């Protein structure tokens, strides 16, 4: 017995001795470097070659790390559309429209992906015009494994392209929340094709593209949008509102009850969205670096605070905190933190989330009822409103210490004393609103003439699953 104790003590002592020793082994590499650079002058040729090789390997290692993270991020963002958004929206509709709304998201995974490769990527990220790109990368010409230093110098151009593709896929899918349960499939396909080409691609170029006039790096109105507050959420949210107004209410709205058919599906969808959003926001650092960590933390805290904000508001109002409220709040927070994620510290991130949770609750429960529009699944109330709040608050809370976007030492947002950035944000917000508004109206007119976009009354009553797709989500007799 005593012996065993003795052995144990010895083992512990040995462990404690070896741990510091092994920890000290890392810096040993440094002296050898100094030695070799001292010897540098004596045998320059060999060592120069070696140093060049070393440089190359360091670059390759960084590229490997960054590329690994960016490929995972791209996959995470795709997961937000399917199954994330498809489940989130799928659970909120009535049973007879489940597959139709899921299919509207899934169709974007096919349609927009192909359009992106054909022309979309080039229109968004080709050339350096102020409003829209060009056709230099059409059919993915010149998009290979070599990085594109204009956007991301450490990852293959292909990775950057596919990562941005996933953003283009989810954005139109968000709109389908407003038109749910009454938009016919042919109309959806045509509308989304046009919307992607005429609204998304130009807006992405204005805000993120080289030479874009809202680009934070050198644009006329430098607008801070880290991961898509204007490009993704304001554009889709405002377009959603226009669609809901143009299309009219669902038959029976608001008198007939239309409760969600499965909040379990919505719950799973919202949780997948939350996880996928790490790829969306932290991936927008375009590298596996400190900025990605900062955006990751901001994203998570923003979502958490917003879930609390919405739930508390609901608890006060209805005496109960609902599951649907909590997940809606989280999504609202994720939307609002999107433009800010890579510019703000953790505490402001929580403030943004809390504000978004409370405001979106108010939008969805009060403002919608006041105006009586039928934004069926609250695409505008969550994405339009949340995106706008987030974009404006980014101007308030952005800090140079997190991301010296305007150059080292230059103030970023209001907290740094650069209050005029809020004005720049406002310009970005107004342009995104106006552009989405006008573009969507034009596209709706075209769609209306060519295919029509509202299902017939009979189809709407029978449900879109059977009438648009010839199948049912739940075949209970089989």
């Amino acid at each position, binding site marked *: 017995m005593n012996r065993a104790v003795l052995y144990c003590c010895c083992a512990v002592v040995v462990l404690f001795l070896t741990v510091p020793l092994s920890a000290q082994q890392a810096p040993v590499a440094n002296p050898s470097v100094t030695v070799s650079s001292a010897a540098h002058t004596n045998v320059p040729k060999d060592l120069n070659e070696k140093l060049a090789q070393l440089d190359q390997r360091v670059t390759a290692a960084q590229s490997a790390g960054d590329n690994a993270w960016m490929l995972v991020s791209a996959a995470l963002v795709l997961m937000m559309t399917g199954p994330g958004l498809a489940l989130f929206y799928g659970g909120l509709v009535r049973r007879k429209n489940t597959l139709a709304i899921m299919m509207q998201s899934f169709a974007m995974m096919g349609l927009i992906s192909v359009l992106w490769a054909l022309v979309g990527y080039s229109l968004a990220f080709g050339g350096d015009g102020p409003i829209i790109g060009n056709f230099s990368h059409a059919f993915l010409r010149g998009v290979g494994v070599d990085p594109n230093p204009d956007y991301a110098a450490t990852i293959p151009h292909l990775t950057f392209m596919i990562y941005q593709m996933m953003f283009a896929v989810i954005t139109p899918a968000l709109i389908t929340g407003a038109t749910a349960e009454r938009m016919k499939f042919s109309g959806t396909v045509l509308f989304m094709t046009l919307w992607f080409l005429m609204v998304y691609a130009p807006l992405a170029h204005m805000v993120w593209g080289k030479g874009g006039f809202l680009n934070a790096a050198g644009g006329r109105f430098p607008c801070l949008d880290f991961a898509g507050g204007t490009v993704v959420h304001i554009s889709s949210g405002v377009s959603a509102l226009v669609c809901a107004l143009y299309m009219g209410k669902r038959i029976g709205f*608001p008198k007939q*009850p239309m*409760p*969600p058919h499965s909040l379990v599906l919505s719950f799973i969808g919202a949780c997948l969205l939350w996880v996928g959003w790490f790829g969306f926001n932290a991936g927008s650092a375009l590298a596996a670096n400190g900025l990605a960590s900062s955006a990751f933390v901001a994203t998570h805290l923003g979502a958490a605070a917003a879930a609390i904000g919405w739930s508390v508001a*609901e608890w006060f109002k*209805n005496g*109960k905190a*609902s599951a*649907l*409220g909590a997940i*809606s709040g989280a999504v609202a927070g994720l939307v609002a933190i999107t433009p800010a994620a890579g510019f703000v510290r953790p505490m402001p991130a929580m403030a943004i989330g809390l504000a978004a949770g409370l405001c979106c609750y108010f939008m*969805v*429960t*009060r403002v*919608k*009822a006041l105006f009586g529009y039928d934004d069926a699944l*609250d695409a505008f109330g969550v994405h339009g409103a949340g995106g706008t709040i987030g974009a404006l608050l980014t101007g308030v809370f952005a800090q140079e210490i997190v991301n010296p976007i305007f150059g080292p030492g230059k103030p970023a947002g209001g907290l740094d004393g650069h209050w005029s950035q809020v004005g720049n944000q406002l310009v970005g917000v107004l342009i995104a609103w106006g552009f989405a508004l006008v573009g969507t109206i034009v596209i709706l007119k075209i769609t209306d003439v060519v295919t029509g976009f509202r299902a017939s009354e009979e189809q709407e009553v029978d449900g879109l699953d059977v009438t648009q797709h010839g199948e049912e989500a739940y075949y209970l007799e089989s």
Partner: protein
Amino acid sequence: MMKLEAIIQPSRFESVKDALREVGIEGMTVTEVRGHGRQKGHTEVYRGREYTVDLLPKIKLEMVLPDKLVNVVVDTILKSAKTGKIGDGKIFISRVEEAIRIRNEERGESAL
């Protein structure tokens, strides 16, 4: 022969079934139904939209009994299904003309 239909709270179903087994009743037909009598429904709120749910889930028991067992069964159900609150349900009793066992075409009380 009498037919007895009892509409009860779903939460009381297991104890009613156990109590009936104790007095020797094994056969019954059970349906999940929705309805309400004097009990008002409740409201559900989805993103600020309120819905009144007035048809509430209930359990309906149906059994056909020889006349002499009816009183015992009614007492048993009354005792085991009662919570004392509105919404405990009701029992309906009616006369049955005939009962036939499909397997061997027995008729009358021996078919029960």
